[in-house]
């Protein structure tokens, strides 16, 4: 029983930290703000959920378990909301997304395009 708990917790922690590292690498390599926000928002939420589930499995007391559940619920609620608010504010203030290669030449010629 002990070894099942340890292995499942280790697996959840491994998946979570792998997702967080992917998010970090994506932030550096993606070309545009909106694509970077995909990387940050998706991997942040799921990675932190996995890590917190891994910690919940090996938690030592009832109060610790409840607090980890609260951090998990808070993270799941706040993560997508922050992505939405950031994207809406950026679009509202005029930051245009980077579109595909064929239309990029058209975008450079006409400055006020809105596909």
């Amino acid at each position: 029983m002990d070894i099942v708990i340890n292995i499942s917790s280790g697996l959840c922690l491994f998946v979570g930290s792998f997702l967080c590292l992917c998010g970090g690498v994506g932030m550096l390599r993606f070309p545009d703000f909106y694509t970077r926000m995909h990387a940050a928002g998706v991997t942040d939420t799921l990675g932190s959920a996995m890590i917190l589930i891994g910690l919940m499995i090996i938690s030592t007391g009832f109060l610790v378990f409840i607090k980890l559940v609260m951090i998990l619920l808070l993270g799941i609620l706040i993560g997508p909301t922050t992505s939405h608010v950031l994207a809406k504010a950026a679009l509202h203030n005029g930051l245009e997304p980077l579109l595909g290669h064929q239309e990029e030449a058209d975008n450079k010629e006409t400055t006020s395009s809105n596909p």
Partner: protein
Amino acid sequence: MIIAATLAIFVAMILAIIRGIAGPTLYDRILAVNMFGTKTVLLISLLGFVMGRPEFLDIAIVYALINFISVIGVLRYSDSNEFKHTPANKESTEKEP
């Protein structure tokens, strides 16, 4: 395993800071600070387990809330004209090294 997860989170934080310093637009920097805050919450929870003091989870909850409120505040009070992202603005920020 927890120590390996802590190191991974630390590396992700450093990557977020690099994007925060080098981000060409303002919104890249806001996104980087937000990601840094979320990783900090995870780091504090993991450190609490590593050091055997579960009181750190209170700090983790507070920091998650403060991170959220700061990002909402930034986006609510950047509605004025100086934060408008006109194409001329974009070119001038791309020319800077």
